[in-house]
């Protein structure tokens, strides 16, 4: 879950509540779903929260939510924007993989160390969340005074988003003194190495130019020329990405945060050239931006219509319309009563502010209303519906078998389903292709946690021997059994895997032998009224001449025998072990 560091003094200042103690602030934050995890070295609160309200990734956003919670603010607020002076022109050469750009100009910002830190934090947090580690959206913030707009035909100063050859130009990136090409940045610069994987496959690399030259290499790093400092007064914010909606929303969150610091917002015109990339939106949402000319930031609001009755059923309480409107305004929404299509039932049209990225459906509005009401104020009730409970047949069979095994003196075990090839096959002298019980092609894990867990086990006996190996210092006899999950690759199955439950048992003691195992297997077969035969067989895990197939009702379903000394020694065991394993389904 995302975390955000918030300076409590800044929070008090931005909310206008100097009187709140740290403890009170923490309690109020918990009410918003922001959990206090501790303090940073500088004494800031470390807050953890669920990744839906990404507009709370900075102190400005958290302060806004608290002002609504305190009742100091109500309803939707949209900051004003001045008309555009700057244009971002998107060149045809822009990489197909990253065709979208958006931007805004910020004027008259008064940045001190804290607010600059907060801006940088917001940028990083947005990258980590909505931006999907910059893959989906990346933010660049520049000192506007360091930019010189290209002399454009229509008079607006213009910057250009283009695609260039990886070694096509040079610039001095942040935290560096050297002039590097984009390709060199990926190899030689720390930040470049971190994000190299995002663009290294591109034919052309994304680049942003002004009249002076290359000043940003999104999504990797900005140029040093336009670096933002506490002296910066006017900013140029640009964002590039794989989805227009996503970067526009990220931009809105940044614009709201800066407006809360007293900055003036100014529109930017985004001009798309006609090109192939114009239709490459992952979501078919290109229509929105297909006008070739967008004005950004897009601070338009959206509406959701929600019936009064649905609000009442989800929350389980009766509400007055005025109360609903009040709850909405305290959530930063606007609400208007309307007559619905359905027999004129009462519905509301809720207006959703442009910084909200989590509202997809009317249900999300109801959740907001519930939070404003206080979910913990609701009285729990047991649902008044009757149903009949019951167990699945497979789990009943498993339980019945387990009860029998325990009655026969076995200690019931529970082992991991994931195992290594070495444990599953090699240490039992088994080849996956051996064609004996327990062999078979494994379902393997693509990126295992460690080399101990690379596949799903094909049988249970290896796990039981591992437990014996771990417990040689514990008292014998050790009679262990497990009814456990196994899997092998099977192309005839829809999921490509044959998943089974095996009954595995080992008897380890100074005098354990075949007969001990057979006696218990016979008892099981008798109790489940199935016909058991044990014709001799060969199996590499067991001693030749003391190994039999488990045949139940004329089908080979398992193996029984004395474990071969080679395997015992391999597992550091100093006592004989007799074992059997068979398919649980055979007892059905």
């Amino acid at each position: 879950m995302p975390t955000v560091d918030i300076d409590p003094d800044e929070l008090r200042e931005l909310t206008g509540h100097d009187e709140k103690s740290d403890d009170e602030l923490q309690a109020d934050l918990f009410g918003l779903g922001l959990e206090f995890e501790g303090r940073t070295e500088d004494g800031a609160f470390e807050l953890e929260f669920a990744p839906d309200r990404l507009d709370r990734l900075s102190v400005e956003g958290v302060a806004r939510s608290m002002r609504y919670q305190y009742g100091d603010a109500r309803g939707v607020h949209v900051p004003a924007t001045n008309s555009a002076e700057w244009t971002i022109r998107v060149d045809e050469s822009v990489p197909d993989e990253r065709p979208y750009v958006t931007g805004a100009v910020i004027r008259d910002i008064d940045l001190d160390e804290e607010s600059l830190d907060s801006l940088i934090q917001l940028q990083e947090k947005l990258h980590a969340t909505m931006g999907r580690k910059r893959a989906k959206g990346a933010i660049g913030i520049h000192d506007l005074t360091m930019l010189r707009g290209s002399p454009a035909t229509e008079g607006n100063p213009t910057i250009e988003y283009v695609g260039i050859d990886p070694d096509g130009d040079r610039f001095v990136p942040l935290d560096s003194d050297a002039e590097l090409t984009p390709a060199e940045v990926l190899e030689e610069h720390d930040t470049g190495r971190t994000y190299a994987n995002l663009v290294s496959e591109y034919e052309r690399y994304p680049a942003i130019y002004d009249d002076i030259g290359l000043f940003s290499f999104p999504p990797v790093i900005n140029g040093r020329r336009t670096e933002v400092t506490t002296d910066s007064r006017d900013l140029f914010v640009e964002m590039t990405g794989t989805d227009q909606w996503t970067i526009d929303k990220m931009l809105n969150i940044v614009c709201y945060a800066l407006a809360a610091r007293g900055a003036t917002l100014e529109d930017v015109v985004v001009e798309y050239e006609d090109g192939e990339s114009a239709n490459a939106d992952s979501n078919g949402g290109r229509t929105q931006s297909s006008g070739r000319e967008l004005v950004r930031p897009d601070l338009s609001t959206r509406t959701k219509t929600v019936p009064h009755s649905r609000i009442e059923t989800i929350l389980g309480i009766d509400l007055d319309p005025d109360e609903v409107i009040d709850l909405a305004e305290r959530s930063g929404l606007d609400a208007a009563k309307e007559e619905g299509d359905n027999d004129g039932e009462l519905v509301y049209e809720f207006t959703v502010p442009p910084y909200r990225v989590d509202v997809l459906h009317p249900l999300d509005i109801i959740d907001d209303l519930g939070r404003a009401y206080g979910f913990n104020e609701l009285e729990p009730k047991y649902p008044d519906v009757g149903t009949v409970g019951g167990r699945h047949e497979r789990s009943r069979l498993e339980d019945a078998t387990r009860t029998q095994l325990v009655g026969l003196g076995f200690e019931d075990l529970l082992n991991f389903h994931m195992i290594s090839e070495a444990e599953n096959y090699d240490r039992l002298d088994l080849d996956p292709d051996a064609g004996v019980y327990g062999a078979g092609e494994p379902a393997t894990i693509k990126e295992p946690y460690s080399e101990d867990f690379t596949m799903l086990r094909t049988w249970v006996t290896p796990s039981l021997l591992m437990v014996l190996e771990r417990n040689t210092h514990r008292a014998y006899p050790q009679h262990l059994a497990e009814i456990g999950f196994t899997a092998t690759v099977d192309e005839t199955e829809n999921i490509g895997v044959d998943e089974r439950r095996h009954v595995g048992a080992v008897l380890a003691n100074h005098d354990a032998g075949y007969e001990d195992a057979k006696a218990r297997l016979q008892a099981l077969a008798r109790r489940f009224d199935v016909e058991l035969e044990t014709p001799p067989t060969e199996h590499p895990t067991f001693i030749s001449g003391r190994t039999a197939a488990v045949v139940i009702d004329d089908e080979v379903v398992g193996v029984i025998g004395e474990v071969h000394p080679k395997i015992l020694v391999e597992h550091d065991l100093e006592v004989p072990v007799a074992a059997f394993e068979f398919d649980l389904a055979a007892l059905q």
Partner: protein
Amino acid sequence: MQLPAAQVAVLQAANADDATSVDAIAEATDLPPETVTGAVFELEDEGLVAVAERVDETITLTDEGAEYAAGDLPEIRLYEAALEAGADDDPVSMGQVIGAAELDGNQVDIALSNYARKGYGQIDSGEITADPDADPNADAEANALSALEDDGDGDSELAADEFSTEIRDQLERRGLLELAETTTREVTLTDDGVTELMAGLETAETVGQVTPELLTGGEWEDVEFAEYNVEADAEQFEGGRVHILRQTADRVKDVLVGMGFQEMEGPHVDADFWINDSLFMPQDHPARTHWDRFALEQPTHIDELPAELVERVERAHRDGVGEDGEGYHSPWDEDFARALALRGHTTSLSTRYLSGREIGEIEPPARFFSVEKVYRNDTLDPTHLLEFFQIEGWVMAEDLSVRDLMGTFEEFYAQFGIEDIQFKPHYNPYTEPSFELFGTHPTTGELVEIGNSGIFREEMLEPLGVECDVMAWGLALERLLMLMYGFEDIRDIHGTLCDLELLRETEVTY
């Protein structure tokens, strides 16, 4: 007083003035020494005799020692051969003397290393001299060996104090004799013992074991059974028991069945479609691209997905559901939906059941649950496993409210002693509203997270063809186990690193 026969015999053989050894009593009573020892301890417990223990050291010749006792020590043989060769006058070649002494193998080394030490002469540059004044008959080590051999009792044994410590240690170092300790017990009658003896003793007829002969022959009527020490600890016995985590799972299942829930069942390896897409989890959600998903290397893809359902799910992802609905601005690729992985939650069972493709269409009201394994590539530490059991449950009905959800969970957790449930508003991609559940720890009183819950989103239910409300929750079974039992490291319990002793000794709960 009535006592078992052996104890009576011991009392009669012992006396109050002189200590009598157990061996002597055994000889006198014609009882095996171990029987006498047993009787002696019983009598000591009764306060009728006093027992004193004496530890004696004895010395025994080793085989090598016996050999030298019968012949001569190698260094003496060397000395005699050297005298013979005239080494008392002039140095003689060592090889010649060794040959004449008929020493071979390691006896040569033994002879040479002791020769000079004991003053028989000098060995220098391969030549040997003999001291004419040395006297083999006065060799203390040789005499000690002879004394042991001539002891006469045939066991070549002597009390340790008959030797000087120096000689004894020297011979022990040379491996020619062994020291042994024996414990001798001596018995003296106590005053009580004398009194009882004077008062007269009767022999009780006792029987150790109930035998078939005793029963069928009817003799059981006339015998007394020997008393056991019924307080003594018996041998430790383990027997079988159900794994503690299984017991907890069974308990949960009992509670849920009692609350009207039916159990679900389904594949561990499943398509991402069932695990995530049909839950309205965007394909670029961190939990799906993140490394905590266990994707399969082989096999890679599910054979078939229901085409019409896939289409509906894709539409929900792209465009949302309902007039005012919006979709995700995320990529959607059917190839990813078909990719196989180990399920990261058992909500894949819920979506399979809700789709009507497992047991047919499910009509409201309905309650379903499972307590099955899930897999997360997270961390392996005392409180986290890569595979663990998830309790999953859902209730389907017309018009469910969050109050119904809260009531259901309060009821469920109360069965495990967890009261005062708090609901923290939360976010899940597939539920809205969503709550993290917190409860008070039954023993420590701490507020701990005990689950995640919510009402399934319409974007999830509509494509699955569900037209009423469904509320659901999930919780790790291991978490409940650790809350109930206070275990500190879950790896001791679940998996091949488990400790049998811990499993054997965990207290039974019910």
